[in-house]
């Protein structure tokens, strides 16, 4: 996955990108009390000391280093506020290519010394994997943070990004954490939400208007 262009999108930004969601299922009242624990259970795990390519999970909206909500709780007024943090190690393709060349040249020299003329396909793949791991071990993950706000009165969720990869990650991690499905409030979904199920067949059978 390429690094996301819009990193650190705070709800306090002057210029916001927003995706609106509704929760498909009815939200059980008991869930609100469980939110802090469920966030903590699905919190971001740091990968600085590993060679993992990426990691994601929830963190405190007030501080992306706080994965225990020690600084402040997620409850703010009638909102549950939290952030999706995504750290990604990205090795530039040119760097990877160069180090693969170095490793393969060395390997070939060794193979020749042993009387072999070539490196097998499997061995090449193995070398490339090792190069990638070595490079990852030397590179620092780049963090990205996207704020999310869940209105406990309306059940609606605002996610501070319109990036499709960030949205998918958010939707999946939300479902994993809370057992609830999010539906983006597209023109159709927002219309259905406003007018109720009774309007479904009318909304589904629309033809585009010709204004000319």
């Amino acid at each position, binding site marked *: 996955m390429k690094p996301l262009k819009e990193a650190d999108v705070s709800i306090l930004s002057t210029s916001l990108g927003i995706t609106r969601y509704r929760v498909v299922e009815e939200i059980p009242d008991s869930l609100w009390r469980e939110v802090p624990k469920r966030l903590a259970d699905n919190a971001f795990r740091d990968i600085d000391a590993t060679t993992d390519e990426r990691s994601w999970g929830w963190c405190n909206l007030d501080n992306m280093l706080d994965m225990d909500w020690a600084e402040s709780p997620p409850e703010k007024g009638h909102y549950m506020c939290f952030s999706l943090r995504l750290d990604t190690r990205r090795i530039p393709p040119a760097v990877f290519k160069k180090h693969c060349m170095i490793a393969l040249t060395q390997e070939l020299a060794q193979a020749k010394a042993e009387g072999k003329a070539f490196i097998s396909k499997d061995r090449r793949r193995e070398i490339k994997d090792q190069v990638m791991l070595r490079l990852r071990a030397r590179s620092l993950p780049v963090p990205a943070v996207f704020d999310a706000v869940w209105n406990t009165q309306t059940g609606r969720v605002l996610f501070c990004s319109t990036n499709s990869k960030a949205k998918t990650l958010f939707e999946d991690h939300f479902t994993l954490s809370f057992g609830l499905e999010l539906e983006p409030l597209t023109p159709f979904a927002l219309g259905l939400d*406003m007018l109720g199920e009774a309007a479904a067949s009318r909304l589904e059978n629309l033809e585009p208007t010709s204004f*000319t």
Partner: protein
Amino acid sequence: MDLTLTERESIILGQDFLTWLWHVTEARGGVFKDKDGREFHLRMEERLSVQGGDGEGLESASVKSPSGELTEARSGLRTGKKVNRAQLRFDRDPESWQMTVKDSDFSLSGLKTPKIETKDREDDDPDARVLEKLYLVEQCLELYDSVYQEFLTVRLSAKWAEETRTVAAWIAKG
């Protein structure tokens, strides 16, 4: 282009809405009412895109005009294109908001709320800034929703045919 049912419906609704909205903002001098009956102004300004055709024949034109003249996009409407992205400005005395809406998914970008005081605050509540910002963002969404709801009511009623003719006459007039 293979679209699922609601994606197709969303594009129809989104484009019909934004095209209708452009006409309505001009026809009414931008005056709308919120759900409590309070007046607010809505203008489509500076940035706007129109789109027409489909599949490989998809054509679009984007206009950026600080003076607010969107003549080239207007002529796009005359060739059957519809608005697929627009910058909206809401004013409800004394506050104003700005955001850009995309037709197909109603994703919002460049949402600017009235400024919140960030320095020298004497709030006891450390969450005050976030809560104030959320209040302002939700106010904007509420205004937006009230306009969309008005559109839906007309769009799904028998009045839509008449409304279509009015919009068509406005487009033809250029």
